């Protein structure tokens, strides 16, 4: 079985992003970029499945410009067998990304596609579900537990009400949550080795996928600021303040 893993290059989660003052976008100049943290967890899970002998090959896939090869190389250093860059400079929306993934899925015929539950830049939380719909296969989102047995995956999902367990037939799309695993650290020799692993580049045009009916983002603004608060000295003052404001 092959496992496909979606890896998105995003602004590192530690960076405090700034909106450009003219409202035209987010200032990403010189900002640290990383693999979307959820995608690192997705990749770690794929590697563990392969190491358990339940998959033969792990392929990392990213849509983006050449700069996303950096994240693909990190994925290869973590242990992926090969990488595919779908080359595009456009700022694509999840439906188009899902369509591009579906083309790769048709070609590679994976038994499992692992994605992050959301990309922390757009916070869309759509791509995995959309791919599953286009592919007409099961989806298991927000996974915090995953076990494979034969042709079935049992997935524990973090839902608002608690932990839901579902069973899906493979192939399926699973989107992962933070508590699924802790990704391994990349070791220096692995970075060297990763340089020799195959990284194929396919252009969006060659895939035959074009964006349509896109949503247009017209303006970016910083969130409204909260008014400056007060500090109190002790629990008694705190409770008095809460009572004053009619909150308790």
């Amino acid at each position, binding site marked *: 079985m092959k496992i496909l893993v979606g890896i998105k290059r995003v602004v590192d*989660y530690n960076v*405090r*992003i700034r*909106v450009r003052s003219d409202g035209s976008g*987010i200032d990403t100049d010189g900002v640290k970029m990383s693999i979307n943290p959820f995608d690192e967890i997705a990749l770690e899970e794929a590697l563990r499945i392969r190491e358990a002998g339940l998959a033969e090959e792990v392929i990392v896939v990213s849509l983006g410009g050449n700069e996303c090869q950096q994240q693909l190389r990190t994925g290869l250093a973590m242990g992926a067998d090969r990488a595919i860059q779908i080359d595009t400079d456009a700022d694509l929306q999840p*439906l188009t990304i899902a369509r591009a993934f579906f083309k790769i899925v048709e070609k590679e015929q994976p038994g499992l596609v692992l994605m992050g*539950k*959301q990309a*922390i*830049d757009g*916070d869309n*939380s*759509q791509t995995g*579900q*959309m791919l599953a*719909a*286009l592919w007409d*296969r*099961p*989806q298991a*989102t*927000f996974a915090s537990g995953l076990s494979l047995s034969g042709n079935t995956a049992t997935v524990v999902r*973090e*839902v*608002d*009400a*608690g*932990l*839901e*367990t*579902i*069973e*899906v*037939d493979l192939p399926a799309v699973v989107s992962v949550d933070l*508590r699924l695993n802790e990704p391994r650290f990349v070791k220096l020799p692995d970075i060297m080795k990763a340089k020799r692993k195959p990284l194929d580049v396919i252009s969006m045009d060659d895939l035959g996928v074009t964006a349509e009916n*896109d949503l*247009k*983002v*017209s*303006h*970016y*603004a*910083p*969130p409204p600021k*909260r008014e400056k*608060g*007060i*500090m*109190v*000295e*002790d*629990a*008694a*003052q*705190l409770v008095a*303040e*809460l009572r004053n*404001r009619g*909150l*308790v």
Partner: protein
Amino acid sequence: MSRTLIIAEHDGQDLNPSTAKCASCASAIGQEYDIVVMGSAVADIAKQAAAIDGAGAVIAIDAEQLSKPLAVSHAAEVVTMADGYSHILGPSTTYGRDLMPRIAALLGVNQVSDISAVEGPHHFKRPIYAGNAIVDIQAPESVKMVATVRVASWKALESTGSATIEERSAAASASSHTRYVDLQSGGGERPDLQIANRVISGGRALASKDNFDLIYSLADLIGAGAGASRAAVDAGYCPNDMQVGQTGKIIAPDLYIAFGISGAIQHITGIKDAGTIVAVNKDADAPIFEVADIGLAADLFSVIPEMKQLLA
């Protein structure tokens, strides 16, 4: 065809308040709206939905294959009724986030996630980057609009109405490739975080599962819901459904009190819409104080017992 369809959320017994919040967003869009309730034995839930002010019709679809909240079957069903609607809305809860993109892709349209404000029938605002930027989004008018509604941004509409209820059987066929096994709910009897007026949260500083009793007892004293930071959940001090933040629950209680939470952006994004934010942290420089309306730099292990005495 300028009509909105709202996908109702429920647990088999009660309508989730997210539905009345979606209705609030639908009325801001300014079109008539219907509500679809999918499940088995949903007559009671359909009645609750029919009470939401302004609902045109409630479509109750009773079918075994819809009895569990599985996106595959619910999406297939919604797609069969999409024709009469220009807008299809669901909540930004895990149910809606799982379901709506599947509907959007089956219909071949993009989805707007987390609508926080409506500027026009095809013009919305939504947060990105964990709420650190708010964008204006224009959806094309030529295709259907599928979206999730950021429930923390909307007040539930009142329930004084009585829409007609139309009962239907399922139009889509069941799919066998996805099977529901079970649900283990972590929470006890405390109010649901997404509806609670008050929420008391604890962070890594609580340092153990036992110490979380401090949070629970204070919460119970004032009828609050209990929340947590990711660090506290990861460490196993409390169940995952208590996590507040970018990847947990986004909440908007009147009062939010954070004990021993540092205030990482991923946490703050979950509480930005709270009425009053209170932070108790022994580090006076903790970033949580930047967003707190009332701050107290002190040790939570002495503050909570004192507060309990004063509030008892």
